[in-house]
């Protein structure tokens, strides 16, 4: 009983922190229809920027905002390489991911930055709320509540954006580029906007995870795109892909389920070294199951 509760708490805490990653990957993987490997660099970039600013005493909100801006910048770099130099979008992502490895090391100055003594966005919010008379403690439940509120705000903003004139153009860019160009849209620009938002959200995940775990690490991004893609696909397998709201909810729930499955895998005796294999198996299952279902049940 207690064990189940601790699994669920950990799933919710880690899942919500990773949910921004799910939203970011949703944009590139679903709307732009390509696996954007920039994520493997922009996620640790978010952690690295936030961590190195926090250890020199920068305000946690400013540090987190800077992390988001850095991630967006990485997305812009990938978009420019793709659109201006006419390089395939996957290769463009790989180039930026590779360059970011060095950037991240330079930003942190070493492979790992500890934040145990640095303030975090969570501690700050808890302090403010307590000053207003809430009696909160700095624990998993508080992290869950704060992250959930932030996630709802970001999701609402993203959903609203995807329904604006510009948002429609960004979505159509991935679905039917010739059409949206023929309607007067500069798709070089919409690709840049989409990749900036995507990698900004992914860097936000990195910054929040670093503050929650108490460190940023150069290796924290390895396999992160597959994690995000698996989450998006798991969510879609459950919710279908019918509307903006469903897409967003599916990406978030997908991340939570992914984290639950990982937590369960650890409980049944798998070791942390096995986790990448579990992730790969989950991605494969999320891809294969809907197809098998179509084949077995018919359309």
């Amino acid at each position, binding site marked *: 009983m207690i064990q189940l509760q601790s699994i669920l708490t950990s799933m919710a805490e880690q899942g919500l922190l990773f949910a921004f990653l799910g939203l970011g990957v949703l944009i590139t993987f679903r709307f732009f229809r390509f696996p954007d490997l920039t994520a493997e660099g922009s996620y640790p970039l978010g952690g690295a920027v936030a961590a190195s600013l926090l250890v020199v005493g920068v305000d946690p909100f400013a540090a987190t905002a800077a992390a988001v801006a850095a991630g967006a910048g990485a997305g812009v770099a990938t978009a420019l390489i793709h659109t201006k130099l006419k390089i395939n979008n996957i290769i463009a992502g790989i180039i930026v991911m590779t360059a970011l490895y060095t950037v991240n090391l330079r930003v942190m100055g070493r492979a790992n930055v500890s934040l145990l003594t640095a303030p975090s966005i969570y501690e700050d919010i808890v302090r403010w709320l307590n000053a207003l008379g809430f009696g909160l403690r700095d624990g998993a439940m508080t992290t869950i509540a704060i992250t959930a509120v932030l996630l709802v705000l970001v999701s609402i903003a993203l959903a609203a954006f995807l329904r604006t004139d510009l948002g*429609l*153009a960004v979505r159509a860019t991935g679905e039917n580029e010739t059409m949206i*160009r*023929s*309607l007067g849209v500069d798709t070089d620009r919409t690709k840049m906007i989409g990749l900036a938002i995507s990698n900004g959200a992914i860097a936000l995940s990195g910054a929040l995870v670093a503050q929650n775990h108490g460190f940023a690490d150069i290796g924290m991004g390895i396999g992160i795109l597959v994690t995000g893609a698996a989450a998006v696909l798991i969510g879609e397998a459950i919710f279908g892909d019918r509307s903006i709201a469903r897409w967003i909810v599916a990406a978030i729930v997908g991340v939570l389920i992914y984290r639950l499955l990982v937590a369960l895998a650890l409980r049944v005796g798998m070791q942390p070294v096995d986790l990448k294999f579990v992730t790969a198996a989950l991605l494969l299952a999320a891809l294969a199951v809907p197809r098998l279902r179509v084949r077995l049940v018919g359309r």
Partner: protein
Amino acid sequence: MSAAMLALEGVTKTFMAGTPNAVAALDRLDLALAAGDFVTVIGSNGAGKSTMLRAIVGLVEPEQGSIRLDGADITHEKVHRRAGAIGRIAQDPHESTCAVMSIEENLAMAAKRGQRRGLARAVTPALRERLRTELAAIGLGLEARLDARVGTLSGGQRQALALLMATLARPKLLLLDEHLASLDPKTAEAVMQLTDRLVREGALTTLMVTHNMHEAIRWGNRLVMMHAGRVVLDVAGADKAGLTVPGLVERFHEVSRETLSDDRVLLA
């Protein structure tokens, strides 16, 4: 002669130039349309009809010649910069609409043709009202399905929607590339009637490619036949009204024989 709405002069496009497979899709093509002209275009497969339309919208860049639209040289202008003035339905039926987005979202994107797109809500209640009216006028019942995905529409409904998208923002020029080709005869007739009405209402200068000679004779005020990347027949007004399908077929054979014998001369 009044200034032309659209003027193609000496437009040339060779695909895979410099290889043994080089194709001269457009060969010093000349064609001018006056404002309000509704020109039907016929010609055998590979005559260069689609390439001509793609050159006008900017998806194909000619290596020679010029394209002027309402006086402005657009030969090398980017697709999205000239898009405000040109509505088009592509030969590939999936190229003109976005299947995974809804009817109202597709129309909202088309309503903003050529305009700056910002952070205003795309589908406002006012726009939705306007779209309902426009869709009701088509008579396919789409006004009740504004939030349905375009991928769920029938071929005729999709082409009617594409037509509305192409004309919604009143472009200067309307380009239709065999937009009835995938429809059954009854639906094709309905979509063609709609085409004619929208062209008249908007007084749109129109180029309509068709493989159906009946349609080519029946609609528009002028008929153009293309062959091997050039205009080989250009008939307007009373002469066009006097055209018959057998007459056109005969004329077409004459033209192809001529080019055939040209080739023989070249090969000899």
